[in-house]
């Protein structure tokens, strides 16, 4: 009978483009079948992990790249080394998100970066120049304050819910201030750069949407779309959605912190991980590389609205950006981006970061103390 490659596919249904290429690949590899199992976003990663932990891994799963180290350290996945040519094809820094211990452990399939969106109408109402976005944190805070005080509407949308995105959002601030969480094997988070980011959080909260800890990025985005926040930091999806609203908006690179050496952003990728001991590892790697190869991937990521940022530069992408300049800040940031920190217990890391952010946002702790405490906790998760 046919040999099968089971694939845990996150989402509600298989993207038609993926469906098309699965067919194509199966056609080229007789005797092989790809069996995608569609699992909702909220559970797909846990499901892949549970299956692996129980000893019946799927061949391939869609996972956040930040989990790769954990899987690798626990000997659950196989490395997926890239050739130099393959590495080169990606935007800079992207391969780093799946690299650990000198080799690659997954194939990037989805990628997102963030940019600053602002509401020109609100800027106008607040007496700000609607065409001038903030360039620095100080400006960002000041603008937010002015919007809040002049219009009564929140100047900024800060997501700080107990959710992975809260950590991501904060990492953007860290990376726009030249900060670092971990350097090799050393926790270096307790630094002035990171402290400044946390302090900026504290400063902007009073002018942000009430109850930051109740919202994650999509909820904050919805508030922005409703015209109830002056600025947000968001991915490409917001641009697509904004087009359907009456809001006059703009998009710019993320504002920078005092210690910034240039633009920056957090590079978040999702990858296809190939699980060990399924007997079809070789073929799964082959398929994974096929489905993420420039052709299929390019078609997939540029559909728009999905909130993805292209992984690789290509003429098509350039065309795309020309047609829609909103993409420019999203793609430009990649060059200065840093990967998600890789931890053995990334959930532990994530929880510690969330806790730190929330304690500052809710005023429960002073930034310096919160940072020190979190840095200490991180030791056990690396």
């Amino acid at each position, binding site marked *: 009978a046919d040999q099968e490659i089971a694939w845990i596919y996150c989402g509600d249904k298989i993207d038609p483009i993926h469906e098309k290429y699965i067919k194509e690949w199966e056609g080229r590899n007789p005797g092989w079948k790809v069996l995608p199992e569609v699992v909702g976003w909220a559970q797909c990663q846990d499901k892949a992990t549970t299956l692996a932990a129980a000893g019946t891994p799927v061949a391939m799963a869609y996972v956040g790249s930040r989990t790769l180290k*954990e899987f690798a350290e626990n000997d659950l996945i196989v490395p997926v080394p890239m050739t130099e040519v393959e590495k080169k094809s990606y935007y800079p820094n992207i391969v780093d998100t799946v690299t650990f211990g000198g080799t690659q452990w997954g194939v990037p399939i989805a990628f997102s970066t963030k940019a600053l969106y602002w509401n020109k109408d609100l800027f106008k109402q607040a007496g700000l120049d609607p065409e001038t976005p903030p360039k620095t944190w100080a400006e960002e805070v000041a603008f937010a304050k002015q919007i809040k005080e002049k219009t009564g509407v929140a100047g900024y949308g800060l997501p700080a819910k*107990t959710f992975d995105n809260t950590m991501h959002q904060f990492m953007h601030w860290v990376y726009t201030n030249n900060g670092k969480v971990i350097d090799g094997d050393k926790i270096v988070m307790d630094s002035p750069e990171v402290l400044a980011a946390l302090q900026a959080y504290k400063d902007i909260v009073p002018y942000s949407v009430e*109850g*930051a*800890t109740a*919202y994650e990025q999509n909820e904050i985005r919805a508030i922005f779309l409703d015209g109830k926040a002056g600025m947000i930091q968001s991915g490409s999806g917001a641009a697509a959605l904004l087009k359907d609203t009456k809001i006059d908006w703009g998009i710019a690179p993320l504002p920078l912190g005092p210690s910034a050496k240039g633009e920056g952003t957090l590079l978040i990728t999702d990858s296809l991980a190939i699980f060990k001991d399924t007997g079809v590892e070789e073929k799964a790697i082959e398929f994974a590389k096929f489905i993420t190869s420039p052709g299929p991937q390019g078609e997939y990521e540029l559909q728009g609205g999905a909130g993805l940022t292209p992984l690789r530069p290509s003429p098509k992408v350039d065309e795309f950006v020309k047609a829609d300049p909103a993409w420019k800040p999203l793609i430009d940031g990649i060059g200065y981006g840093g990967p998600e920190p890789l931890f053995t*217990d990334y959930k532990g890391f994530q929880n510690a970061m969330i*806790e730190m952010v929330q*304690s500052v946002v809710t005023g429960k702790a002073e930034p310096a103390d919160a940072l020190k405490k979190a840095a200490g906790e991180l030791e056990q998760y690396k």
Partner: protein
Amino acid sequence: MSVRRSTLILAWTLLLPAVLYVTVIVAYPLVDTFILSFTDASLKKTTNWVGAGNYEKIFNGTFAEVIIRTFVWTAFSVAIKMIIGTFGAAMLNAAVPGRALFRVLTMPPWIVPMAIGIFMWGWMYNGQFGMISGLLQNWGLIDGPVAFLAHGSTAFWATIVTDVWIGVPMVTLYMLASMQAVPQDLYEAAWTDGAGRFYRFRRITLPLLVPAMITMSMLSLIATFNSFDIIWILTQGGPNGDTTTMIIDTYRTAIGSKKYGEGAARAVLICIFLSIFCIAYFRVTHRLASEEHR
């Protein structure tokens, strides 16, 4: 073969299928969990025996706080469920037109998939678009939007309210059934003696419901102690861990961080606490039963 022997054999024959089934499906994994709690099982392929290490770790951490929070959360939730459920049952017990419909209308929270009910509450709690904050603003009771899940204290109560909402139909139904079991002539006797409706409720209905209340509190306590989906979907234990209960912590440790050993130890602790409640419950009902006649 004596009569007693044969009935014993029969009793066990009748019980065997269910006992076997539950043993295989529940007891076996349970023992597995218990053993796991003494190991450092994780995603790693190898596991080592760590003795009571996991338990020590639990008590060296912030778990004490979690335990206390769990108890407070559970106590409030169960108490409010009982109060609202009994109140609802009393209302639905009144012989007024339409009560059959009203009774049906109390059941949806029980029928709807729990996650959906929680999503709906999530909507209600939303500060910007939700019903509660919205209506309160419209009525001028609050100034700006209030995100109920954003603040430690409101999130704590919001999760309790949702838990209450899910548990109330069962409590109401059970209390209603118990109320209908109170002999009508007791009410008539009291009425003849001049006792008003409220007085009758306070002096007759309520005391007679005590055994049913204890039973229901117990069942509801077990469910509440293990209440997971509500907190997980609404707040994931946040903000600042202010809604992290034992079961959330257990899930986060075991499934989130894949520390199966430590998670199992937490699960075992939950079982121990619940067992203590159960034993207390059986004691109390036993005493009640012997206190009343027979």
